[in-house]
């Protein structure tokens, strides 16, 4: 003790950057949440006053230690997301909805294949036999609604995923590879300056209106805005120093895009993905109305279009599909926003 007291300022002043400290001792301490700084012997609380005014032992590496947070990016994203109650509730409802599209035909008396045309039963209001009532030809509406929901969600997810993937890949290249900028910009102008509905009409008339064709067409014309968005973001990140650092280290373009840039776009991409899903459903409704979708496979758009004309007399025909569309839209709106917020590391505590 006495020795320690004698520790002179001169000694102390020597810069202590001894880098060969034995880390193992530190390492083996149980890793748990701990307050900033060192842990001190409890005894210090009961130190006599004299001892309190003695120099404490100094550990340079302790100053270096940061509070260990057991941090994982995606875990934080997830935790943050879970904090957004409305989004969580809506996504649970949405998942139940999807599961239900598979269960619904099993528990109902009719399936889309067995629902019979029966004019005596047309426009039956919802009842114990027909849970969602019947349509204009006396067919069970329940099985149609759920089948349509499944079709629409499948289409929406397919198109949204397609356009986001295509848009992201093109956007990354567009933004990062300078020599491609011109080409993609012209392509963008080329497609964007004419309302896409024109291209959709052309395709519908020339190639067909089948589910797959229209899905591909939607993907093909919807990637633009995503690509543009991604491209602008890439421009923001492209010349950040960490990318220069990667270039200095000889990292390939592909890896830079995948490892350095893409992760930063996740929140935007997820947001766009989330908004693209209801967007596709709305678009599908419009296309159906314009007669550009194949009607042989019932979708929510088709049900809405059909119900539109008699919803005043039979509101349930509109309410059920419109309600489901609204649930999907609001879910993805909330989930998209919540998720993109959660993806922002600034919101990770």
């Amino acid at each position, binding site marked *: 003790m006495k020795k320690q*007291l004698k520790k002179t*300022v001169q000694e*102390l*002043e*020597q*810069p*202590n*950057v001894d*880098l060969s400290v034995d*880390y193992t001792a*530190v*390492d083996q301490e149980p*890793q748990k949440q701990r*307050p*900033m*700084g*060192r842990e*001190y012997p409890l005894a*210090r*609380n009961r*130190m006599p*006053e004299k001892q*309190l*005014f*003695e*120099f*404490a032992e*100094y550990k*340079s*590496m*302790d*100053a*270096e*230690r*940061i*509070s*260990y*947070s057991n*941090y994982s*990016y995606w875990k934080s994203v997830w935790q943050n997301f879970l904090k957004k109650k409305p989004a969580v509730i809506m996504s649970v409802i949405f998942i139940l909805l999807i599961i239900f599209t598979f269960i619904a035909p099993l528990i109902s008396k009719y399936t889309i294949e067995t629902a019979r045309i029966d004019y005596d039963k047309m426009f039956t209001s919802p009842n114990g036999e027909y849970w969602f009532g019947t349509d204009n030809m006396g067919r069970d509406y329940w099985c149609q609604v759920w089948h349509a929901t499944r079709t629409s969600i499948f289409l929406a997810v397919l198109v949204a995923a397609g356009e986001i993937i295509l848009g992201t890949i093109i956007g990354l290249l567009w933004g990062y590879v300078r020599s491609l900028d011109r080409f993609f910009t012209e392509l963008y102008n080329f497609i964007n300056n004419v309302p896409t509905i024109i291209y959709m009409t052309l395709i519908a008339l020339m190639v067909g209106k089948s589910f797959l064709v229209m899905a591909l067409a939607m993907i093909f014309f919807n990637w633009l805005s995503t690509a543009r968005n991604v491209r602008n973001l890439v421009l923001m990140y492209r010349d*950040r*120093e*960490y990318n*220069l*650092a*990667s*270039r*200095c*280290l*000889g*990292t390939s373009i592909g*890896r830079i895009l995948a*490892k*350095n840039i893409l*992760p*930063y776009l996740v929140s935007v991409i997820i947001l766009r993905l989330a908004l693209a899903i209801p967007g596709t459903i709305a678009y599908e409704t419009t296309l159906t109305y314009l007669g550009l979708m194949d009607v042989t496979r019932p979708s929510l758009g088709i049900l809405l279009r059909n119900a539109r004309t008699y919803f005043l007399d039979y509101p349930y025909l509109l309410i059920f599909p419109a309600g489901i569309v609204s649930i999907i839209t609001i879910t993805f709106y909330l989930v998209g926003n919540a998720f993109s917020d959660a993806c922002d*590391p600034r*919101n*990770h*505590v």
Partner: protein
Amino acid sequence: MSEALRKTVDFEARARQVLSQVPLLSAKEVEVTFSLRGQKLTAIRRASLDLYEGETLAIVGESGSGKSVFTKCFVGMLDKNGSITHGSIEYEGQDLTQFREQDWLRIRGRKIAMVTQDPMTSLNPLKTIGKQIQESVELHQGLRGLAAKKETLRILEAVGIPNPEVRYKQYPHEFSGGMRQRVVIATAVACKPQILICDEPTTALDVTIQAQILDLIRRLQREQNMTIIYITHDLGVVANVADRVAVMYAGQIIEIGMANEVFFDPWHPYTWALLSALPQLGVKGEKLPAIDGTPPNLFNKIQGDAFAPRNRHALNIDFLEEPPMYEVTATHQVKAWLRDPRAPKVEQPKSILRLSEQSQKSEIDTGASHPHLDPNREALIEVKNMQVTFGTGRRKFIAVDDVNFTIYKGETFSLVGESGSGKTTIGRAIVRINPITGGEVLFRGERISGKISRELDTKVIRSMQMIFQDPMASLNERAKVDYIVSEGLINFHMYKDEHDRQDKVQKALQEVGLLPEFSSRFPHEFSGGQRQRIGIARSLIMQPEFIVADEPISALDVSIRAQVLNLLNDLKKSRSLTYLFIAHDLSVVRFISDRIAVIHKGRIVELAESEELFLHPLHPYTKALLSAVPNPNPYVERAKSLLVYDPTVHDYRVDKPVWEEILPGHFVYGNARELDGYRREVEL
């Protein structure tokens, strides 16, 4: 310190003045908390401060110390999620903490004005600067129309903006950073406030501009008899402007006193550490006394003295109880247990004493080698007639023009210049991030600019690495440290197996003084200094011979800078590295470099050995640059005469300039007439 020097400022008189006054503004026990995503952050922890009329009070501290937040309380500009949870701020008999938004309209601007940090974003880009200043004039001086315009023009002139009539109609983007800051100051001055708060007004500016702005603030204070609170992290600036200095750490004022007292007789270990870590006070070839670790996280509850864990002079009690304010003199208080009568006696560190002796002397022969003087020297990098241009056609901009220099193995070669001078471009051109448009770069005599073979490319990448300026931007936030550090290894598959790779990563981390366990974390958990060291580890793992360090410490806090500088010096020795060190801060450059090249507007104007350049600068630009370097001694700093570089002194129309070696190893750029002048100067 000479008596003559001491007479430049009469701090004693100012101290008497302070003691005789009632405070103009008095903040007592102010506590400010922010709620951030459900967590509570106590940014100001019961800080008290008195402000006296007519004085300039500097608040100095690192980022996150709360200096800015504290002063925002005085103008009611706390962010929405923050609130004053304790204490009072008395001003003109009112308690500002009780103010609501309408009440503030009576005070803000009219009585207390503020100059914000970033002049580039502080002005409305769509309004002419005249209108923006006039807005203040009309609002607070009650002038209208032509009278207001006249007053505006007067203010523009007063803040040193030439051609006010023309400038009045211009938009902010037509102004340089320094000029914009003048405009921002003008808008504040136009309010004719009693108190002016300057929140790091020069941080974003070059040294020469900074010196001019400081001059301006001092002059305006004299002319308008304003009371100024000056917030900064730069002790040199403090020395320049402050009558009184308050040092803040972790939301508290830990030492406050007249400038001379704080600089020459500080008593808080943190103040000691801050001053000691200044490269100006360092001894070349030796380590700078650094402060380990990082400031505390204010989300957590702090027990005892917040500085204790980093304090080499910490007493046991520092970890238990917060120290009270001890009075050193009537004007000088310190919040440190060391001043307690029960505490052991300690002396102030040597470097502090050095400051009071004003001994920033040339210590040329400290055992450092001088590879550039060695006849067997080995040229590592040769830059020949380098030109770099950006853009094409009308938008073509020549960033670097006809630059020549050689870097020898084992030396630290520095490039110094202001922002936009092209120094970073040169660095990036050498490591081949930016393509060069003229001349060539040789590495060990081999051309590495332009198109090169794949093998050479690989070789160059592995031998030359770069350290970047902004540790916040230079690490990929979404990758773990493990990936960041081993990125180079992965690219060239420089490891045997996964275990070997991890091993190498951990070794590299240890080498830069970080814990190996950090490898599984993400960059945003680290402080700036730690991040910068991760960046260094990333470069080191490639086993390079040559490193371009692009302002590696300029974005770091004062207390952290020393850590990184020390590390760079250590690595140079242990790995026999060669550095190209790019900086704008001459004091740092002097501390670390063997040779210095001064660059101005894309051209190197002077190149010499470090001390040679400091002692015998030849080019007027170098001289101006050196004259602007802030000195942490208030007497020296205030006594210094500022040289302003006027590029129009060169008349290169007929007499073309050349790059000439005036003395062995001392190059300067100038035409025949100028060179003659320089030669005469040298001979004197």
